[in-house]
């Protein structure tokens, strides 16, 4: 089954896709920004400060999703002995890290008008900071180790250890007393604590951020493939 997705076979698609995804991303982002900054209503308690949610929440969701994917791909690369999994994981990590930083910074900016502080060692914020450290270690390991077998082992270990933190981030608001409110949206249920007028811009911004991470992933994946091909030319 994995032979269908061999880099040599899919490169024709992955090299052409970014320009279409970039166009789609710009369109969806423009709609999302208009909804988030102009059309959506202000919150009765937080007033217009609530608009920060439209960048903070999708960034946090995607950084968690990408790190979970890194762990799954790492397990996959061990089980199926397929190096393409490691290559996909390596290409996903930079956008995950940037989303993590965006979530932390925008959260800090949101914290000032709502909680009266830029930073608190609250369970959710601290566990998100730990996730950023895992992302940092993961990216650094790819730079430090030159030997392919070793770097795959080290990065996989970091991803698998780091993923333990993902459910801690998710349930931190239920397990501990934190400044963060409990989850307002549950993907397993239709019940949400957010009104549709706010849910729609949140959905559009999440779609835009997902497209952006896909765009960066494809560009990064193509870069890695060309790097491999460069090494191949050296061996000719």
């Amino acid at each position, binding site marked *: 089954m994995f032979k269908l997705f061999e*880099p040599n076979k899919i490169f024709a698609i992955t090299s*052409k896709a970014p320009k279409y995804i970039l166009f789609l991303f710009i369109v969806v982002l423009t709609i999302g920004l208009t909804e988030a900054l102009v059309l959506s209503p202000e919150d009765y308690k937080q007033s217009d400060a609530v608009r920060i949610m439209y960048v903070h929440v999708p960034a946090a969701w995607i950084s968690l999703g990408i790190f979970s994917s890194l762990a799954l791909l790492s397990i996959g690369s061990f089980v199926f002995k397929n190096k393409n999994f490691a290559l996909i994981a390596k290409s996903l990590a930079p956008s995950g890290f940037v989303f993590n930083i965006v979530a932390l910074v925008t959260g800090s900016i949101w914290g000032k008008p709502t909680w009266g502080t830029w930073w608190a060692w609250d369970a959710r914020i601290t566990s998100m900071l730990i996730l950023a450290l895992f992302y940092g270690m993961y990216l650094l390991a790819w730079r430090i180790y030159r030997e392919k077998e070793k770097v795959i082992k080290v990065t996989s270990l970091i991803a698998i250890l780091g993923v333990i933190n993902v459910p801690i981030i998710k349930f931190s608001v239920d397990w501990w007393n934190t400044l963060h409110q409990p989850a307002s949206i549950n993907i397993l249920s239709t019940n949400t604590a957010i009104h549709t007028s706010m849910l729609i811009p949140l959905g559009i911004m999440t779609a835009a951020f997902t497209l952006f991470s896909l765009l960066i992933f494809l560009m990064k994946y193509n870069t890695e493939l*060309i790097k491999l091909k460069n090494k191949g030319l050296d061996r000719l």
Partner: protein
Amino acid sequence: MINEIISMNGYGAYVWSAFSFTLMSFTTLYFATKLQLSKERKKFAIKFGSLDAEKARAARSQNINKEILSNTSNI
């Protein structure tokens, strides 16, 4: 209307700085990734150009190499 959007009921500095930081991070990541990609493509084109006829024929037999060369100038 414009003033309302800018001031955001007194929260403008927070809202705009959060959105600006996000968009700046995206722009930086996009251009850094694009630069890396075009560097590797250029490197590939230079290496490919320095191959002798026989090696170039062998390299050209792989579809992926042809694809990389055809996309060297754009993304």
